[in-house]
């Protein structure tokens, strides 16, 4: 059958972004860990527990817990700046 209608694609391709990971430390010994809490119930409890394991089993020397404004947005500049200035590694996560 002859093709008679030309129809158009409704989708969009997201803009490509180059992601650049910070270099990973070879050990956590003596490092300070930033913990980014996402405001959901128990997320602070979970992160502090992870932090405690890192201290007890991996030699982490300190923790800095900071709270995002809410779970649906990226961490704001203020806490990113603080963690960048003070911490060697960071743990962030979203979960229900």
């Amino acid at each position, binding site marked *: 059958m002859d093709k*008679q209608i*030309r129809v*158009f694609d409704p989708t*969009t391709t997201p803009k490509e972004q180059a992601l650049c990971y910070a270099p990973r430390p070879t050990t956590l010994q003596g490092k300070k860990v930033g913990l980014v809490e996402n405001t959901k119930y128990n997320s602070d409890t979970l992160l502090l527990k992870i932090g405690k394991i890192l201290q007890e089993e991996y030699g982490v020397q300190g923790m800095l817990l900071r709270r995002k404004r809410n779970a649906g947005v990226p961490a704001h500049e203020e806490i990113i700046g603080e963690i960048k200035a003070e911490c060697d590694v960071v743990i962030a996560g979203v979960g229900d």
Partner: protein
Amino acid sequence: MGSANLQSKSYEVSDTSEAIEFYYDKGWTDGLPIVPPTEASIRAMLDAAKLEPGQEIAFIENRQVSVTAEKVAINAVMAGCKPEYMPVVVAAVEAIGDPRYGYHGPAASTGGSAVFMLVNGPMARELDINCGDNLFGPGWRANATIGRAVRLIMRNAIGTLPGKLDRSTLGHPGKYTYCIAENEAESPWPPVHVERGFRPEQNAVTVFAALAPHQVSNQLSNTAAGVLTTMADSMHISGSVTGQPQYVVVLAGEHMRTIASDGWSKADVKQFLFEHTHNSIAHLKRTNRMPGAVLPEDETTMRPLVQTPEDFIVIAAGGRAGVASAFIPGWGGRSSSQSVTKEIRRP
């Protein structure tokens, strides 16, 4: 206008039936058949809003997606919109791209919200956007297709696919379409867009990340306080309860007239609902809505359902007869997503 070439990839098909099946096969529909978007129908959409295909309508930060007029037009055709609906769809897309709406949260959350849309101003009547009988039901092309167009744009242009970026646990039927107008002709109160600083003759769309409508029945009271006592009692445990989202309150014909005949303004309605929807911390803890053991002071410590009375968006709409009104809890909390009103620009 709209003279630049369309940039989207195109495909040849034999006829409308083949086109409909082709869009199903591609995963480009909401489950209902689409209207095949041809160059002529896409250009008619663009011309109706005086837009060039490449013009950016919204940029969705989390997705790094630029939603162009061309993609809005293609999806509006697919949804079944008339070209004259296009300015409304464009304004709604601008609104969901506003940082105050916070697209990513309500679009991706397990909480499962839809984009509720309220159209105010003369265009609502010109386009026959239903504000009366069967308010949230089927039967009006504008209500059915404007809301559907926005959902198709979310799906196709922004990639908000169920089970992937849209992780709604339940969702609700408003995700097909959720578009109404305010009954400005019969309302005793200023319409929502005027409350938000627009002039009555301006046109505006308000978007709101919304759960499903809850119907509230009161056929006994003939006072404002009586009707709203029932409303408040139904509302006070609803939605996410502790998140303090905004709420839409839809007051339909009989209740609207009862409340207005007592001389109550929209501000009075909001204040009354604010004062009568508090919950004790003890109750919230006992019912597992807040963590922790119940402390003695929790019995008398009250938490409001919303942060301020202005977080109730009061809309006069619905059928003239009947003893029902409705409330719609917002998604999450106001700190995560707020209702946003944008002007609809006439071409």
